[in-house]
């Protein structure tokens, strides 16, 4: 290197010769000739496939963004895409999380109107053995407007408000009648709160009254409420992975209270967190632990359009009841607004 440097210093003349030789003016005829070549090139460019594609705007947005943008846009795009991937991954991880029981309850409570069909199959025996072929009894319950209720049980239609029965009408005799035990039970069960609560449906009072508690039991050992253990049993109940993506199942084991056991299973939708089906079953044993009664309640919830206030109004219903021109079939769902204008008695 040192030698090279020295040579370079010594040979400034040589360097000047190089400089002069390579910085000469371009001859005019040659420049004109090359300009002509450039002009021809310019003309030919019109036929270039890339230019044609540009003219037809054939470049997709992605390519336009990536290739036609400035260099600083590319890292920005990459960072944005990375961020989007992270957000999607977080959303997928958190979004797939099954809803908790509290979330299901909260969602149910927020519904302004609920239509319920309850199928009660009381496998009950005055004597033994049990009859598992017993036909279920259908009870229809509509609730809305701050826990106003309308219940149809057999021939009877009952109106209630916040746990208070307002009127019960017999559709055959077209007059007021006594409330049956199931309706009374349901009105009490739905509670007196302003909202419809899932817990109030499931909650059962301990059938053991303090009088029945043996004296030798420590005081306070039995509470009046059943104990409750909630477990997410989705994988056990729904083995199909596709179905379990849509549904979540909760099992409630209320345990023993005296000679009774109570269990409940709730199916809820994963995304909307709304319960759609509940099964409650009770086992009633005699003192020898023989099953004497086993009522099973299957409750199906639908969340159709909100019904008009008249639907829950006993006075409006009573007025229609007096009109002999209105058939019994019409009275059953009087003031009910069918979704889609259909007249079938469906929720």
């Amino acid at each position, binding site marked *: *290197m040192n*030698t*090279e*440097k020295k*040579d*370079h210093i*010594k*040979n*400034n*003349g*040589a*360097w*000047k*010769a*190089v*400089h002069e*030789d*390579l*910085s*000469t003016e*371009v*001859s005019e*005829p*040659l*420049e004109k*000739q*090359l*300009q002509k*070549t*450039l002009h021809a*090139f*310019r003309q*030919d*460019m*019109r036929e*270039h496939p*890339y*230019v044609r594609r*540009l*003219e037809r705007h054939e470049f997709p947005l992605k390519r336009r963004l990536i*290739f*036609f943008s*400035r*260099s600083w846009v590319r890292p920005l795009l990459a960072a944005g895409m990375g961020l989007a991937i992270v957000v999607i991954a977080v959303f997928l991880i958190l979004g797939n999380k099954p809803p908790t029981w509290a979330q299901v309850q909260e969602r149910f409570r927020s519904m302004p109107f609920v239509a319920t069909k309850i199928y009660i199959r009381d496998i009950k025996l005055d004597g033994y053995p049990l009859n598992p072929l017993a036909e279920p009894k259908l009870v229809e319950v509509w609730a809305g407007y701050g826990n106003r209720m309308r219940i149809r049980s057999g021939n009877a239609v009952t109106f209630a408000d916040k746990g208070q029965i307002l009127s019960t009408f017999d559709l055959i005799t077209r007059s007021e009648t006594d409330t049956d035990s199931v309706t009374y039970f349901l009105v009490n069960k739905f509670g007196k709160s302003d909202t419809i609560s899932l817990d109030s449906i499931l909650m059962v009072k301990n059938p053991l009254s303090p009088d029945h508690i043996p004296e030798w039991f420590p005081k306070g050992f039995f509470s009046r409420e059943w104990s409750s253990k909630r477990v997410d049993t989705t994988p056990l109940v729904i083995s199909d992975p596709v179905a379990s993506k849509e549904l979540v199942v909760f099992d409630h084991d209320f345990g023993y209270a005296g000679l009774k056991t109570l269990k409940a299973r709730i199916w809820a939708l994963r995304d909307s967190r709304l319960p759609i089906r509940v099964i409650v079953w009770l086992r009633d044993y005699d003192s020898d632990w023989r099953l004497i009664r086993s009522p099973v309640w299957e409750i199906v919830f639908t969340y159709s359009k909100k019904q008009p206030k008249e639907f829950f109004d006993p006075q409006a219903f009573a007025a229609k009841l007096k009109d002999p021109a209105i058939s019994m079939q019409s009275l059953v769902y009087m003031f009910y607004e069918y979704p889609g204008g259909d007249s079938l008695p469906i929720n």
Partner: protein
Amino acid sequence: MGKSDELYERLIRPIEKRMIGIVTRIVRDPEDAADLFQEILALIWARLERIDRHPNPHAYIIRICITRSYDALRKRARRRRREIRLESIKAKIWSARPLGGVKEVDKATAIREAIAQLPPNQGHAVLLRLTEDSPYRTIAGVLGCSEATARSHFSKGKARLVKLLSELGISSYKEETYSEY
């Protein structure tokens, strides 16, 4: 204005003179220069899309001009060496004389042959600096390196070139103040 005109105005028009200057100064023969220019334009045609997407399309085109011109120099130098060898075998008169001595070839050819012996990066840097008086920043852009590296390529190339030229006997100028590089 169509897309092709727009593209030409954007990519080629601003550096037309530089392109012509580089080619004609490096390749002195008008016919060779015209052929080389055609070759360069053919390459630009083939790489038009890539050039358009390039963050510095002008530097890309100048790089094509420089590399092609430099390749032409080397090709020519190789051809001449082959011819000399052939002649020496034929006439047995060149054997004791230095390669491309100034007495046998003109000065311009000797200079170009000396440049052709430089490593590519040094050759490119020297040619850019000499033909269009490019600042080091421009040279760095064309070579795709840092300014300091461009400066280093040039100074090494210059030193080597001067040495080669002195071997060829081109050192008769005595202007010691010539130090702008």
